[in-house]
C-alpha cells in the first residue's frame, strides 16, 4: 500500500524534481540577472548599493561614447577575420585531413586540435611571451632574418595589436573548427562523388557542387557560432594586454569594455546597457547570417 502511494507520488513529482536543478539555476543565475540588468540599465550605480534613476541617460551616453565605438569596431574586425580567415583555413585543413592518401591522420587531427585544449589563459600567456620585444620568439626569428628590429613591440604598437590577437586566435581555434568540418565531410554521401565523377566533374567542381552543399548546415552553424564567440572575445586581449585596452585602445573589445565599466568602475547600469546592446547586436547578426544562408528556405 505504502509502496504504491510512494510510486504514485514519484510519478507525479519526479519530472519537477529532475528539472528543478536546471530550472532553479536558470532562474537564479540567468533569468534574474537578465531582468535585473534590464532594470539597472536605467540607473547610474556605484556597485549595487548606491544607485540613482537616470531614465534613458545611459543609452544616450552610449550613443556618444567614443570608447564604445572603438570597442565595437575592434570586435567587428576580429569577427571578420574569424569568419573570413579562420573558417576557410579550418575547412581547408579538414579537407586535407579527410584525404585518403594522408598518413597518420589521427595524429595530425589531434595535433591541430590540441591548442584548443590548452585554454585561453594559457594561450594568452604563451603568446605574450612569443610577442615580447627583444627576447620574444617572433622577434628573435624575424630579426635574425633582418625583417624587423629585435625590439619591435607587437603588443605595444596600435597597428600590430589586432594582427597579434588574430594570429593567437587562429592558432587556437583553427583546429577546433576543423573538427566540425571534418565531421560534416565524413558524413557526405560517397555515392554523390562517384556520380559526379561519372559525369566528368573534376576535383574543384566536386568540391563546389557536392561538398559545399552537403556541409552547408554545419558551415552555417560554425559561422554563427564563430561570430557569437568573436563578439564575446575577452580573455585573450585582457591577458595579453595586461588588463589594459592596449595602445590607442587597439585591443579593447565590447566585453572588455563591459567588464571595465561594470566591475572596475562599478557602473553596473552602463555596463548593462553595453551588455544588452551586444546581445541584441549579436542576435540580429546571427539572424541575418542564417537568413542569407537560406536556413529557413523551404526545400523544393
Amino acid at each position, binding site marked *: 500500500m505504502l*509502496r504504491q502511494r*510512494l*510510486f504514485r507520488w*514519484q*510519478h507525479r513529482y*519526479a519530472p519537477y524534481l529532475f528539472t528543478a536543478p536546471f530550472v532553479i539555476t536558470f532562474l537564479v543565475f540567468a533569468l534574474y540577472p537578465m531582468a535585473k540588468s534590464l532594470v539597472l540599465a536605467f540607473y*547610474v550605480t*556605484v*556597485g*549595487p*548599493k*548606491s544607485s*540613482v534613476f*537616470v531614465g534613458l*541617460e545611459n543609452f544616450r*551616453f552610449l550613443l*556618444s561614447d*567614443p*570608447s564604445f565605438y572603438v570597442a565595437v569596431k575592434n570586435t567587428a574586425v576580429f569577427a571578420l577575420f574569424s569568419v573570413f580567415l579562420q573558417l576557410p583555413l579550418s575547412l581547408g585543413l579538414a579537407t586535407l585531413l579527410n584525404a585518403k592518401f594522408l598518413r597518420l591522420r589521427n595524429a595530425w587531427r589531434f595535433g591541430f586540435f590540441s591548442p584548443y585544449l590548452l585554454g585561453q589563459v594559457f594561450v594568452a600567456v604563451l603568446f605574450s611571451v612569443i610577442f*615580447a*620585444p*627583444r*627576447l620574444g620568439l617572433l622577434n628573435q626569428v624575424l630579426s635574425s632574418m633582418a625583417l624587423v*628590429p*629585435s*625590439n619591435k*613591440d607587437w603588443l*605595444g*604598437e*596600435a597597428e600590430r595589436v589586432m594582427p597579434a590577437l588574430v594570429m593567437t586566435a587562429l592558432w587556437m581555434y583553427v583546429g577546433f573548427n576543423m573538427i566540425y568540418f571534418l565531421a560534416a565531410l565524413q558524413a557526405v554521401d560517397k555515392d554523390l562523388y562517384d556520380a559526379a565523377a561519372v559525369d566528368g566533374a573534376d576535383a574543384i567542381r566536386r568540391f563546389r557542387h557536392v561538398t559545399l552543399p552537403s556541409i552547408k548546415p554545419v558551415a552555417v552553424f560554425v559561422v554563427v557560432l564563430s561570430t557569437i564567440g568573436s563578439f564575446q572575445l575577452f580573455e585573450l586581449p585582457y591577458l595579453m594586454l595586461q*588588463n*589594459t*585596452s592596449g*595602445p*590607442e*585602445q587597439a585591443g579593447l573589445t565590447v566585453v572588455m569594455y563591459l567588464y571595465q565599466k561594470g*566591475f*572596475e*568602475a*562599478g*557602473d553596473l547600469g*552602463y555596463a548593462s546597457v553595453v551588455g544588452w546592446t551586444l546581445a541584441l547586436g549579436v542576435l540580429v547578426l546571427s539572424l541575418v547570417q542564417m537568413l542569407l544562408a537560406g536556413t529557413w528556405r523551404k526545400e523544393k
Partner: protein
Amino acid sequence: MAEADRPGEDEAQPARCPCASALRALADRLGDWFPFGKAPAIILVLTALAAAWLAAHPVEKTQADLRFWTFADTHYFAYLKALPSFEAKHPGKRVDIQFVHWTAVTSRLRAAFWTDLDVPDMVEVEISQAGSFFRGPAEEVGFVDLRPRLEAEGLLDRMVKTRFAPYTYHDRRTGEDHLYGLPHDVHPVMLAYRRDLFEAEGVDVASLETWDDFVRLGRRLTIPDKRYMLDFADTGGGGFEVALYQRDGGLFDAAGECTMDSPVALETLLWYVPLVAGPDRIADDPGWGQSWVKAIEDGYLLTWTCPDWRSKSAEQQIPRMAGKMALMPLPAVRPGGRRTSSWGGTMLGITRKSRHPDLAWALAKHFYLNPDELAERFRETNILPALKDAWKHAAINEPRPYWSGQPIGTLYARLAEDVPAQYTSPYIDFAKSKMSEIVAACSSYYDKHGADGFEAFARERLKAGADEVRNVMRRNPF
C-alpha cells in the same frame, strides 16, 4: 545446456566481498522503491549524502581578532617577522596576515564593499588603485576616515605630507577632505646606472644636472637597437608619470578636477615623446621580469628610473650586477629644480566593518610608525618609510655593496621631502589609461611625421582625452 549443468562455473567466479554484496542488495532494494531505475536512485542518494556532509562541515571561520591583506610579498614576510612583538604587547589577540594578489585585492575588495560581504579588518592597497575605492557617497566608502586619529596623535607632521594626497578624497558635495589611508612609503625616484659602463665612457654623473645635459649625453651614447640611455616607454605609464609629477603636474588636482590637458601636461608630453619616438630617440622600454634583467645585464640600458622599491628588485633579480650599479638623483627640469619624482606607493586602510578598529589602529602604528621595525624592514625591502623619524636610524644609512658602496637609504631620504604630490580621483584608472593612449598616439605620430604639426596634435589629443574623462565624471550623481 542448462545453466546449472555448466561444469566448473562456481569455481570460476571470484569470491564476493560481503560489503559489495550488501551494497548491491541495498541498491536493488532502492531500485524497487524508485521507479526510474537503480542508477538515478544512486545518484540521488549520493547527492543527498554529499549535501548533508557539506552542511555538517561548514568552512571554519577564522578565529583571528584581526585579518590583514597585503599584496606585496616583501611586505608580507616583513610583517610576519614583526607580528610576534605586537602579539606579545597584546596578549590573547591573534592576527591573521594574508598575502593576496594585488588585482584580487582590488577586485575582490571592491566587490565585497559593494555587496556588504565579509571584508578583512585592514588592507594594503596599491596607490594607483586607491582612488577607485572612493567612488560614491563618502558615507559608503568602505574605509574608515583616519584623519581624526592622525590629528589627535600629531602624526600628520611626522610623516611626509605629500604622501597623504593619493589617499585623500575630496567630497565635492560637502567640500570635506577624507583621509582613508596611512602611507606606507615615500618612493622617491632616482636614476640607476651602469657605473662600470659610464666609467668606461668617461661619464661624470655629477655633470648631469639637468635633463638637457642628460639627453645630450644620451644622444651620444645611444646606438639604435643595441643600446639605449633610458627606460622610458612610448606607451606612457611609469616613465611619463615620473616626468609629469616631477614638473608638479598630474592627472587630477587637489580638488579632484581633471588636469590632463593642463599646460604642464602638454609641456611634459612635448618633451617626453621625442625621447621615446622618432629617429633621435634615446629611450626604450625593456618590459618587466626576465626581459628587464637581460636588458641591464647586456648593457642594452645604461640607466633606468629607480624608485626605492625597484632598487630591491634589482638586488634580487640581477645579482650579477652587484658592485656595477650606482644611483644618481633625477636630472632637474631646470637648473636648481627638483631632482626627484614619485612612482608607486601603498596605503593601509582600516575597513568600516572591522569589529576591532582600535586594535587595527594599534597594529597599523606597529607596522608603519615604529622606527626600529621600519629601519629593520628597510634592510629587507629598501623601502623608505613615510615616517621621517625612522630616517635617522643606522640601518637607513648603511653603505650597500650592490650599489657600489652607496648608502642608498640616505640618498633616497635626502630627496624624500621633495617628492611631489599625486592627487587622486575615483576616476584615476580611467584617466591613466587615457593618458597612456595619448602618449602612444603621440609617439606614433612623431614616428611618422616628426616635429611637423606635433604640438597641435599633442594639444588636441590631450584635450580630447581630458574631455572624455570629464564626460564620465559628469555622470556621477553622488
